[in-house]
């Protein structure tokens, strides 16, 4: 696929923009692809709907917006309600299961869920919920390699918090691996 469109959504303060930035950086700097990350948020510093849009492509990227994402990540109910309709038919949906209650939809999509915020809270730092989600995302979607993701995380988070964040990243991956493993077992 030469152009992959990803929309990451939640509310202000969850670090959604950083999420998009790390993903874009992983693709662009550490995976040799092109990528564009566009952010959008309301006037709120916190609490308002917020999203970041990442396009990953082999060629040039003119149009930087994501109108019909291949992958949608929702970390709030509001964002879920607002953006789900945009998700491509047979796209991938990823949610924080404590913050989003999925509704019935006719969309043929694959949904994955993780209690990212709760896992982060368990780690003692609710603030890394986004990175937990990122680890989960990486493992589920393989949009970029996990190593690229690790490098992008390490060079993007505030100095001194690298370890915590890498731990959160692998926490997310772990959770995904468990799910995927479980699914496999189920099969």
């Amino acid at each position, binding site marked *: 696929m030469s152009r992959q469109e990803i929309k990451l959504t939640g509310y202000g*303060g969850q670090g959604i923009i950083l999420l998009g930035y790390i993903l874009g950086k992983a693709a662009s700097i550490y995976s040799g692809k092109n990528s564009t990350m566009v952010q959008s948020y*309301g*006037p*709120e*510093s*916190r*609490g*308002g709907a917020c999203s970041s849009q990442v396009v990953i492509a082999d060629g040039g990227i003119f149009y930087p917006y994501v109108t019909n994402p291949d992958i949608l990540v929702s970390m709030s109910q509001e964002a879920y309600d607002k953006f789900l309709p945009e998700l491509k038919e047979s796209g991938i949906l990823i949610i924080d299961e404590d913050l989003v209650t999925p509704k019935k939809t006719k969309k043929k999509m694959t949904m994955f869920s993780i209690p990212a915020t709760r896992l982060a809270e368990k780690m003692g730092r609710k603030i890394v919920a986004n990175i937990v989600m990122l680890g989960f995302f990486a493992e589920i979607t393989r949009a970029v390699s996990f190593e690229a993701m690790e490098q992008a995380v390490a060079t993007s988070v505030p100095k001194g918090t690298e370890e915590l964040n890498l731990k959160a990243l692998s926490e997310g991956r772990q959770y995904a691996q468990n799910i995927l493993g479980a699914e496999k077992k189920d099969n």
Partner: protein
Amino acid sequence: MNEKHPMDYLLREDRIPHIWCPGCGLGSSVSCFIMALEDSGLDLNKVVVVSGIGCTGRVAGYINLDSFHTTHGRAIPFATGLALANPELKVVVYSGDGDLIAIGGNHLIHAARRNINMTVICVNNFLYGMTGGQVGPTTPLYAKATTSPYGNFERPFNLVYLAAASGAVYVARWTALHLRRLTKSMTEALQKKGFSFIEIISPCPTSYARRNRLGDGLDQMKFYHDNSIIRHGADPKEADIGFQTKIVVGKFIDVERPDYHTFLTEGLAKVVGERK
């Protein structure tokens, strides 16, 4: 969210929840203001709220009074127009430290000098909250902000001193947790004719506390409250605020001086003849 809160009738409840962050002191200050509006006994149809731009500037949009959300720094002159064109109005300017003291500083000192009949409520969160936490003229020495990543090396203004030196007839400072005292000051200011100024020290967990590792809103609330010393009548000159130091609060000034409109119209009446 159909359940009603008793303060809703003075809120534009169709706009609640507001945009302020969890742990932000702004909402608490507004509760006090609503209570003060009540206590003031004023005809609330004649009370007007004017804000500039900023987190605090959003107050105008939530209070169910005639309200104006103007431009950054220009709340006071806009309010001056309102207050002078219809002296029956009680005009309240509710805005942030950056709005009122940085870009709007000139209007503040001149309105105080003229003793325009208005109440200015300045929520001081020590920086520009709305734009993400840049350093400002109230940021304490050495505190970090997005544009003072190595710490602030600019002496901040002591707002109560500046207001007093400019001529305000009522000057007080409280923290957002001095709920009853703040409400009382607001009530007094609303009832006072002339230029009154109230500074509210308020937690900003998102933009100020985070970068300075001061915890969350609750931590900041506690710190400000626990480290404040009430000194009514203190010389505002002595009320500087440092980085995480003691904060002198209280009512500093409460004097009488005819407000601009009264002084002007009475003065002109003597010279030009009685106005209808």
